């Protein structure tokens, strides 16, 4: 029989770390996925630049649109990445096996977030560097770093929403209808295309549900030359939003049938 070896009781942090490392290892091993996840957002930003060039849009307008749009691409990509993963684990029953082996809801959700955040960090950074190169943003290091922080926070929120959505779905196929439901209102109602105060009342409510609204508010201030804290409410809303969605995702992660 297997004799008991020298082990200690695990802590939530050690279990979260174990899941994060495992997820990261799987991401790195899946080369095709990794390359697609890194290249796709860069391609989309490049397409946008091509479009603006062709339309001859003035620089001032371009910058007001293109930086939040870069953030939107990160939101879009990271949301879809994570929307699939947990439902895949549910279908494969590895989720149940994790539970049986002592892992708990919040640890699983956080572990996934930790693993995918590493990927999202790289994706956000790539997009920002590309924006800088293509549009020659005249921001200075401080404002670039601030913009990066906003995009990164948005990526974390988007992944948490992805996990939440995958909890609601029972099969991978059921995730698909949720994808436009999240990303289309984010694009239309976040102030990216039309100013939010021009929307009807119900549209403004939807705006405030989308994390893109808060990210856009803060980014617009940064584009205009102000600081992160100029729209303090929107800036604080980002980490609060992340925390709430994370908690909701953990609470809705079903274990028993």
């Amino acid at each position: 029989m297997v004799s008991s070896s020298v082990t200690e009781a695990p802590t939530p942090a050690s279990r979260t770390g174990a899941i994060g490392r495992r997820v990261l290892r799987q991401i790195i091993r899946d080369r095709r996925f990794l390359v697609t996840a890194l290249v796709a957002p860069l391609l989309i930003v490049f397409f946008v630049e091509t479009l603006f060039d062709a339309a001859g849009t003035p620089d001032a307008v371009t910058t007001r649109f293109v930086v939040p749009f870069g953030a939107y691409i990160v939101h879009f990509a990271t949301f879809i990445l994570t929307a699939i993963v947990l439902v895949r684990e549910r279908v494969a029953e590895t989720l149940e096996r994790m539970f049986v082996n002592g892992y708990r809801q919040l640890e699983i959700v956080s572990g996934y977030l930790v693993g995918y955040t590493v990927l999202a960090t790289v994706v956000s950074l790539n997009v920002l560097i590309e924006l800088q190169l293509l549009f020659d943003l005249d921001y200075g290091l401080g404002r670039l770093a601030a913009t990066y922080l906003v995009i990164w926070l948005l990526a974390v929120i988007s992944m948490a929403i992805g996990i939440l959505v995958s909890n609601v779905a029972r099969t991978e196929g059921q995730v698909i209808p949720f994808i436009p439901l999240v990303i289309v209102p984010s694009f239309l109602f976040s102030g990216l295309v039309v100013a939010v105060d021009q929307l009807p009342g119900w549209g403004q409510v939807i705006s405030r549900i989308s994390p893109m609204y808060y990210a856009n508010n803060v980014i617009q201030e940064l584009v205009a030359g102000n600081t992160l804290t100029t729209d303090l409410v929107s800036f604080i809303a980002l980490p609060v939003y992340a925390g709430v969605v994370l908690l909701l995702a953990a609470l809705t992660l079903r274990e028993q049938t």
Partner: protein
Amino acid sequence: MPVPAGRWKGVDGASLLNPSVWIATVLPQQWGPLSLLAGIPVGKSRGVRSAISARGLTKRFGDVVALDRVDLEVGEGSIYGLVGPNGAGKTTLIRTLVGAVKPDEGSVSVAGVDPSADKRQVRSFVGYMPQRSVLYSDLTARENVAFFLRGHSRGNADDAVEQALDFASLDQFANRQVHTLSGGMQQRVSLSVAMAHSPNVLLLDEPTAGIDPELRHVFWEGFRELAQSGVTLFITTHQMDEVVHCDRVALLRRGKVLAEATPSDLLASGGALVRIGNGEGAAEQRVADVVVDLPRILHGNGLDPAIDRIEVRYSTLEEVILGLVERDGGSDSG
């Protein structure tokens, strides 16, 4: 009625592995050997304290009754077999024991703990091997065992990982990604995962499915060793010949326990077929107890000096189980 040739064939080949199949050919005056064969020792009930117990356990999924007032008692350090056709409720029962399914009615206890009320505690001393080899196919065998073990413990768990891999004879394959391993090999990894944290109770859902006969034999030897070291094993199977390895067996069908006994009692309940030949032909008769019934038959025959052959064939476990299923209302396919 003539006996179909097929029923008497195939017995010899299986008799070595399967002590439930015997042919005895004796002359009328040689009674001795038969009485020795009557009580075939197959395993023994060694559990004293109960490691698993279920009382009136009922679980419904919509209109389907998956478990219907199931009563079970599994002794500590014993091997308990749960047989039944697909869809009988075996997996639901095993998942209830690990707290993955919440029962609608009745009570369950695993080592004195209710799994649906305190699944964390139950899972610390229970190992569960699901029916499919649920693993991360892009991780290696060792990485899978180490990852799932992390949920139970931290610190220096390397030894536990190696011992679990070793138990399933996986040392050579430990660094291969699971998707490159055969189905049987994946089952072995899955077993390693289930036992890496040294559980006192092992719940194995069809652990030998898709495994070749040789390895299956090795598995059962390992299970017996584990039981001897005090581990309780609860094993589901639909391969009825495996039942002989268990100390006790329950037959589950449509969520109900049709029979619960030691394999030898179950076997004895099936009786035997006695066939008496007298040079011209043979008469056969099914009897419940050979020791008691054979003299009666011979007396009925007036100890006919023409009798030159008496063949006794005990029912196989498979026949007994199929008979019970049939009496319960036909066979389940699939």
